[in-house]
């Protein structure tokens, strides 16, 4: 680098920077705002959970009610994430690899659950499957329980987490184009072979990314699940619902103990997300060159 280039570069920095006082104020406000609104709420969850020590904390988590909630949460997340993973892959293939009219509308419709209040996401299933709902009488006469049972909770969770996987995959697969798949097909590979041997290896980080975010939301969903669950203790309470019940009964240590598990999940999700984003960026750079 020649001397003039260096001088030019430092001139650049001066031109594009603010007086030091403005910088200090902006950085200070940023730190203060994020500390008050993000760091402290996170810290207080663990502080409250450990108020009476580690033994009380672990005892709260070993309660049968807590264990039942953990099991239900895991089961519901497995169902919803599984369904949305399969759907996400199928939808991303149709949308990213082909041109057709109405594509933007279709993507908007898939993203719809992000804009719907969680409470309304639960309400729609009450209107369908509740005692007074469209299918209520039929379900009752056939003795099928959807509402206030696991199927209802899984449905509401699937609704709420619907867009995550496809949203992670569509832009990625659009960027990658169709050349590799076309080459595979022209060499005689079937559609399924092409997908599993060519497409899937290319999008594996994107799939993981979508699953990660989908899972975090599925395990943490509160509003939609609250409307359809019926709050039957030990049966239809997921972890977020148990947090609410314990908190409203002033059982603060158990409430925050269960909450701390969910907070931990959020932290792990964020760390994994950062790592995956790095992989995705690397893939993008390789393609751009």
């Amino acid at each position, binding site marked *: 680098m020649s001397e003039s280039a260096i001088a030019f570069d430092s001139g650049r920095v001066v031109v594009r920077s603010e007086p030091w006082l403005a910088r200090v104020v902006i950085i200070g406000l940023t730190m203060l705002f994020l500390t008050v609104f993000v760091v*402290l709420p996170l810290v207080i969850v663990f502080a409250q959970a450990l108020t009476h020590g580690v033994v009380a904390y672990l005892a709260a988590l070993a309660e049968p009610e807590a264990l039942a909630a953990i099991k239900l949460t895991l089961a519901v997340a497995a169902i919803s994430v599984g369904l949305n993973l399969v759907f996400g892959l199928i939808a991303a293939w149709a949308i990213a690899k082909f041109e057709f009219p109405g594509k933007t509308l279709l993507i908007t419709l898939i993203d719809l659950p992000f804009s719907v*209040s969680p409470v309304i996401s639960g309400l*729609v299933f009450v209107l369908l499957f509740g005692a007074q709902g469209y299918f209520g009488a039929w379900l009752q006469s056939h003795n099928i329980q959807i509402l206030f049972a696991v199927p209802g909770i899984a449905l509401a969770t699937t609704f709420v987490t619907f867009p995550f996987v496809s949203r992670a995959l569509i832009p990625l697969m659009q960027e990658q184009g169709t050349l590799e798949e076309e080459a595979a097909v022209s060499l005689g590979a079937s559609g399924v072979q092409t997908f599993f041997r060519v497409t899937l290896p290319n999008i594996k980080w994107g799939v993981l990314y979508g699953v990660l975010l989908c899972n975090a939301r599925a395990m943490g969903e509160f509003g939609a699940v609250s409307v359809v669950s019926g709050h039957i203790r030990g049966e239809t309470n997921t972890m977020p619902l148990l947090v609410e019940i314990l908190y409203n009964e002033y059982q603060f240590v158990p409430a925050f103990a269960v909450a701390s598990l969910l907070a931990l999940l959020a932290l792990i999700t964020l760390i994994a997300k950062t790592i995956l984003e790095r992989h995705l960026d690397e893939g993008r750079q390789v393609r751009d060159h």
Partner: protein
Amino acid sequence: MVRGSSVVTGGSGRRNTLPGFGLTMGLTLTWLSVIILIPLAGLFLKTFELSFAEFANIVTSRRTLNALKISFGLAFAAALVNLVMGSIVVWALVRYRFPGRRIFDAIVDIPFALPTAVAGIALTSLFAQKGWLGAPLAELGIKVAFTPLGIFIAMIFIGIPFVVRTVQPVLIDLDPEIEEAAASLGANRWQTIWRVILPSLIPALLTGFALAFARAVGEYGSVIFIAGNLPNVSEIAPLLIVIRLSEFRYADATAIAVVMLVAAFLIILVVNRLQHWAQTRIPVH
């Protein structure tokens, strides 16, 4: 801009050689209808069972109107705070180097990742009268928890990532030469920011604002613990839906939900227009 899709689409007929379009599109539309479209349509269908007078009666009843005012009004105010604070945060994260920058950057996403019920009880104990922040605020005579102010705080929390994450990539990609050009033409730093940088960020800022607003309007979990939930004072619209449901007043719950859904659809439309505007006005180079 050389991004994959535009290059590959070159030969227009080429895409059709890949198999599986009919099958995957059929499955996509079926699954979308079963999980999303039919349930949502059921909600609208349910409101048609009401006469217009009945619908209007529910929606304009004092308690419903107040709940809608509280949800929309406070969500708007919180989104404004997020617009201002989000701009400051994103500027610091993109333009400055300071200790802990990467960590602060990463934790911006916490409100996305933290389950709303957890955020709700955390904010409540933080701002309760004996809480870490509630106690000093109480000495100043400010009561946050169990007042509308608490709702406002929770809505700010939930909206933080939207403005930051929509503006961040735009600010990173902003061409440094336009700032240098402004400066070399004699603009001072303030003029450059106000007249050159800000206008190019406006679509992203408005998108972030709209997304934060939409999220806060429908927010339930992080709000209900700190709200106090006093009818007409600190009762949000989603909570009123839940209350009406528990009273088996399905018509009331549905009517309120439809009003909120229509508002949500309008916000989506606005955001889509904003995205379109942003794409067409930024010169491609």
